[in-house]
């Protein structure tokens, strides 16, 4: 009895699974894989991915987007395997946790015949992806430096708070330093504040004790900028035209810019919404009548009071 029941149950499940597969076969299945949020920017990315999923599935009923987030590179590699074996995806949008360990897993997805879109962090082997979507790190440094040059004069002093020692941080920092060179603006020192509010606060406190004359701060990131502003206010050195330039596009900072905040007057875009851009472009690879493959590098737009509203997402956690 029991055996028969089990067999029956198995047969039914099998049938259902087969029916499900058959029904889904005519759908375009797109897997979207990205890291589980461990900091605010990634949380923003998750939010934008979910928004894009809702919007695109409504727009194209035959498109099925499967969102998966993973807490570490190993888990992401497993998630990619599952997307191929269980879901049999037609395309993959992937924001790799780290480039090196995920290159092979993505290559395996490619071998299954799927279209590959890589977001933000590139793979360590060229030619795997059909489409590359990313923010522009060197441009972020350059745009920040150009703004500094516009506001400051020869002999003015700035300090730089960098992120976590990584390639991204180096790209931003090197481009900034190249652009600021020869402008007569002194970069007093630069320290890592790890894209973190607390570190931003502490490093800035020390810079303020060490340098009696600072005219502006390049904080590189909005979280660091919030810590910097708290330190400036504590030391009472937030007047005299002092300003801080962050980066990324955090909603609180954008709101401040819209309201005319003098301490953080601008922001440089490095949007977590780039995952949505990548999902849009991937869907259009199946839906558009134009070519889609290639590189899609987002601009590091300078967000000012005039254009801030179009970058403000009050619902997003970032």
């Amino acid at each position, binding site marked *: 009895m029991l055996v028969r029941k089990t067999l029956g149950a198995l047969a039914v499940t099998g049938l259902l699974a087969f029916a499900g597969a058959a029904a889904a076969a005519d759908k375009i299945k797109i897997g979207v894989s990205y890291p589980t949020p461990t900091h605010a920017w990634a949380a923003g990315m998750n939010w934008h991915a979910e928004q894009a999923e809702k919007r695109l599935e409504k727009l194209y009923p035959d498109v099925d987007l499967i969102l998966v987030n993973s807490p570490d590179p190993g888990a992401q590699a497993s998630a990619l395997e599952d997307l191929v074996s269980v879901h049999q995806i037609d395309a993959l949008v992937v924001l790799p946790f780290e480039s090196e360990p995920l290159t092979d897993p993505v290559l395996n997805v490619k071998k299954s015949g799927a279209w590959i879109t890589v977001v933000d962090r590139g793979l360590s082997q060229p030619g795997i992806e059909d489409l590359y979507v990313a923010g522009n790190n060197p441009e972020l440094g350059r745009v920040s430096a150009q703004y500094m040059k516009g506001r400051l004069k020869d002999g003015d002093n700035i300090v730089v708070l960098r992120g976590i020692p990584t390639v991204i941080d180096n790209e931003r920092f090197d481009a900034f330093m190249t652009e600021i060179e020869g402008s007569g603006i002194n970069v007093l020192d630069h320290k890592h504040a790890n894209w973190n509010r607390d570190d931003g606060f502490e490093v800035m406190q*020390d810079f303020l004790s*060490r340098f009696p004359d600072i005219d502006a701060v390049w904080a590189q990131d909005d979280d660091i900028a919030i810590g910097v502003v708290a330190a400036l206010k504590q030391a009472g050195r937030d007047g005299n035209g002092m300003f801080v330039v962050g980066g990324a596009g955090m909603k609180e900072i954008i709101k401040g810019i819209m309201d005319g905040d003098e301490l953080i007057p601008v922001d440089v875009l490095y949007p977590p919404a780039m995952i949505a851009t990548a999902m849009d472009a991937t869907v259009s690879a199946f839906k558009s009548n134009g070519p889609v493959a290639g590189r899609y590098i987002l601009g590091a737009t300078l967000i000012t009071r005039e254009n801030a509203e179009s970058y403000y997402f009050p619902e997003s956690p970032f």
Partner: protein
Amino acid sequence: MMTASENAGVKPAKRWSVDLKTLGPALALLLLCIIGFLLNPAFVSEGNLANLLTRSAFIGIIAVGATFVITAGGIDLSVGSMAAAISGVMIIVMNNAVDTLGTGIPTVLFGCGLAILLGIGAGWINGALTTKGKIEAFIVTLGTMGIYRSLVTYFADGGTLSLNFDIRGTYRPVYYDSFLGLPIPVWVFIGVAICGWLLLNRTAFGRYCTAIGSNEAVAKYSAINVDRVKTLTYIIQGLCVSFATIIYVPRLGSASASTGVLWELEAIAAVIIGGTVLKGGYGRIGGTILGALILTTIGNILNFTDMISNYLNGTMQGLIIIVAVLLQRSDWKLTKSNKE
């Protein structure tokens, strides 16, 4: 017999070495301060010293609690995540209390009271699982570390929890104001340190901690309620985390998944630099406080110089920590020569 004669032989040397052991961390700190001053006289400015002391308060307060746990032979890896989770819950609850309690002192007191309850509760959970559940403290607190960290990520939806702006105005002085020339967090630090010192050195409870840490079985046969004392050390640890959180939240008025990352290791490092033995049985609150000050001073000095590559900050910190501990082991030569 052998041990007795050896002890007798070591005695005069031991007294001398104990002095150095106590002085070790103090000497290391003094040395660091001199280096700091030579790098830039602004190091000893009133503002910088106030910043330094205030910053040390978080790790210092947590490390006082850790001294009890470690002295009694335990370990608590969950404190950093616990601090983040308590900050998060405090912020959510205070934001929600605005409608009923307003944005004044009652809301802040409500938040602080809740933080203390949460700290005690979290400490009790760690303690009960270790003693009643008979699970290694390392495993228990490794588990709760993961739980608290993911809870704060979940509460914040992966982003950042921010305190209501008006409450922040009321609460801000707790971090930024001074009393008799010292910032409030430093007063809290001093208070916790004095209570901790009295508790460890002048009460039966303190002696029980040391006894359990050096030999749990013997302590049990000496009619010490080992489970209760051990659980209490984790509760003290939780309470210390609450105090640290209460002075941390008004600093930036926010909590996120990156709050308190690696605080557990910093607290343990402060305890060990201060001379407490990692495997238990010997604890020093005074040393722990010096240890916390040393750790903060290293970070501060590194920000005061551009001589060392940014990438080597961790190396410098590691080296100084190891040297500070080596300084305390300056009795090793004497023991060796005595053995010969």
